[in-house]
């Protein structure tokens, strides 16, 4: 059952994280449909959203890769390590005038004009994929702003109907509709749902 080619091996061992994201997404989806309280629905929506964000970030993961910030040896400004080597060489080799001057010159050149180089394909494998991170970073911040809008709407519903339970709100809307005379063209009432 857990053999090399089995379905369970494929799902639970090699792609365990994806399965958990599916579970989280389903928890959020179920809460959005079945919960009666509007704030519970919003928490469900946030869980749904974060499950998708988790999935997106996960496709950028690489085995054995580091975070997407250049290591010292690839850092466009990180020539300090090389400088130390140069200085050590300068100290161990005799520090005569003609030797020290060109060294100092090259040192200054490094500061004035350094040339960062493009990474090879082999080296790019050492860094996690930054693109999903960027897309999801903004999605999180926009997500909290939209959560704020949804919470404001919830407060507005509470101000109007005195409740945030969905069935009670729907009953209040129906009672209002029954009290007002609606022209025939618009006589479509929202159907009450049984929680």
């Amino acid at each position, binding site marked *: 059952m857990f053999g090399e080619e089995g*379905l369970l091996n*494929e*799902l639970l061992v*090699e*792609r365990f*994280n*994806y*399965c958990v994201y*599916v*579970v989280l997404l*389903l928890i959020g*989806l*179920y809460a959005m*449909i*079945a919960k009666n309280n509007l704030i519970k629905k919003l928490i469900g929506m946030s869980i749904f959203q974060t499950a998708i964000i988790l999935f997106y970030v*996960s*496709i*950028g*993961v*690489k*085995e*054995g890769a580091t*975070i*997407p*910030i*250049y290591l010292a040896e690839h*850092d*466009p*400004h*990180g020539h300090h390590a090389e400088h130390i080597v140069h200085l050590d060489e300068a100290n161990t080799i005799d520090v005569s005038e003609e030797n020290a001057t060109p060294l100092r010159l090259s040192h200054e050149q490094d500061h004035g004009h350094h040339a*960062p*180089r*493009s*990474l*090879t*394909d082999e080296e*790019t494998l050492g*860094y996690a*994929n*930054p*693109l999903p*991170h*960027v897309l999801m*970073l*903004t999605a999180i*911040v*926009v997500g*909290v*702003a*939209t959560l*704020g*809008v949804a*919470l*404001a709407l919830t*407060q507005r519903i509470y*101000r109007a109907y*005195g409740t945030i339970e969905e069935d009670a709100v729907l009953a209040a809307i129906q009672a209002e509709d029954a009290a007002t005379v609606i022209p025939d063209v618009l006589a479509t009432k929202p159907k009450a*749902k*049984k*929680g």
Partner: protein
Amino acid sequence: MKKVALAVTLFIGALLLYAAKDFSVWGHLQSPASASPVSKHFIADTGVDTEVPNMVTAVLADYRGFDTMFETVVIFIAGIAIIAILRRTGADADSPAIQRESDVVAEPDLIVTNTVRLLIPVIQLFAFYVLAHGHVSPGGGFQGGVIMGASFILVALAWDLPKALDRLSVDRAIMLAGVGILIYAGIGLFSMLLGGEFLDYAELSHVLPVSREMARYHAMLGVEIGVAFTVTTVMFAIYANLSTRGRLEGGL
């Protein structure tokens, strides 16, 4: 209803799990997302193009700068929408039946206020650090802005909202949020005036005493500051309206 929801949920779950076995193995180096030339280009050439060590910041503020600008606009619009939704007109006052449980006014707690007094400078300094070091370490305009906004929210939580509004009123907050977007768009327009495309920061090297790469580096800090302005003020404006049902008085 619950049964229907469960059935729908389980059906979608089965579909997703059926699809999950087609994903590449966790962390595979040659998965489609990681092997694509776009991702490789960002990793290989960010250092050459912009000299920014943090690739995420470079992609966020430079390569995808247009996208980020409008994400900031979305946040700004969300702030305005919340104020519009919760705004009170004369006939719209609370009915007496809907009073909050927390309407009893309490004195600010001595221990809490003194602790917050010590914490706020540290939080704000950290926010500036996160903003300014977004290029070389995790951080940037969004994170620094949220931390800065949280320091204002902390004042409102420890004392009451008017004390925080003395420091940053909601009107001024929305104005500063607009200023943030104007800083962002202004840098974009300025690089357009200098002969490049919109948000092509390299053209700023005509006015800055640096190379084209370093001009992109410094312009990124500029747009991150714009983002931080918007995020800080919108986060605080959202909290101020949500915590008081739009009345902007009293504590939480």
